[in-house]
């Protein structure tokens, strides 16, 4: 029994040290407020991304790359360029999904689940989901140069997809650098944002949904 407790304590310490020191109280609120201030000051975002999906069943990774554009007012373009072409554009209540073989335009209001997924994507990139107390319980960690937010979904349908979502922020810029989504099955999706440009002009055409 003592041995089990020792192992459990060691695992807890190891897991905490990987994410940094847990922050609570006023310090936690200050971190979330700093991220929130940055999020609300972001009028546009543009970056490259690398997505690494770890498939537990195959013990293998699936790596894809692409570009992301975001503009205040609910506009998001998430485009995969390699090894497949796929475009997701969200503009207000309309979403376009386009692959080589198919193009669909969906009204997010008609699909509750789709609406929630789109909301998570958008709010994760900006960091706005940290203040979404209704949908997530949030634990904050401080790791010096980086802050980590671990989000536990409160809603059952989201919990069925993601056990938790881990957002890493640059402490200096209070902006997201990477997103990790962990599923119940043990699969993880890790998205690393690179060459991030904020508040630069973005061509409105990239958000066209027709």
């Amino acid at each position: 029994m003592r041995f089990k407790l020792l192992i459990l304590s060691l695992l807890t310490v190891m897991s905490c040290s990987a994410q940094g020191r847990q922050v609570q109280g006023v310090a936690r609120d200050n971190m979330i407020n700093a991220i929130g201030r940055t999020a609300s000051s972001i009028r546009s975002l543009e970056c490259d991304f690398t997505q690494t999906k770890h498939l537990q069943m195959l013990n293998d990774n699936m790596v894809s790359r692409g570009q992301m554009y975001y503009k205040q007012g609910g506009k998001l373009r998430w485009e995969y360029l390699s090894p497949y072409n796929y475009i997701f554009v969200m503009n207000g209540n309309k979403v376009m999904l386009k692959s080589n073989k198919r193009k669909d335009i969906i009204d997010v209001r008609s699909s509750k689940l789709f609406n929630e997924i789109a909301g998570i994507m958008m709010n994760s990139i900006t960091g706005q989901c940290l203040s979404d107390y209704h949908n997530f319980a949030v634990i904050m960690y401080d790791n010096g140069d980086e802050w980590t937010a671990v989000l536990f979904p409160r809603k059952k349908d989201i919990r069925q997809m993601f056990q938790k979502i881990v957002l890493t922020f640059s402490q200096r810029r209070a902006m997201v650098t990477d997103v990790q989504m962990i599923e119940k099955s043990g699969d993880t999706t890790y998205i690393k944002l690179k060459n991030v440009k904020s508040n630069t002009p973005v061509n409105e055409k990239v958000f066209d949904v027709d």
Partner: protein
Amino acid sequence: MRKFLTLISLLFMLSAAVHAQSAISFGTDGRAQYSLLIQYKKAGITGVCMMKKDSSNIVGSIVNEFGVKAFDFRYDTEKDHIKLINVISFLNKWYIKKTIKADWRYLFSYPNKHSKSRAIYFSKDGEITLDNIKQGIKYSFKKIEE
């Protein structure tokens, strides 16, 4: 005339050899990655299917382009048995799983299994289509070159 008959026989043999290939091709490392389009009536969803083959099993995962899992599977090549694992809630119904299992068993056992309600087509651009004629479901696979 004899030459002509020989030529015809050769062509038939070649054609039979082409059709004897299994539908899914795996690399030397046992991996295969395909883009996947599933169509049912006018609706359709796209995703990625990643598979690995060893001496007696094919294991695979179907995810959408964002990485959201639809389901995992394990196909026993010796017993011709398939098990679906980690099925997303909206597909986790017995009648849906029954159809998926039967379709994928047909895909992996091709060309050894005959079916009146299912067919597999190969297009010139390398696309493979599994057609569940009875239920109107089409699965189109296109190899992803990494």
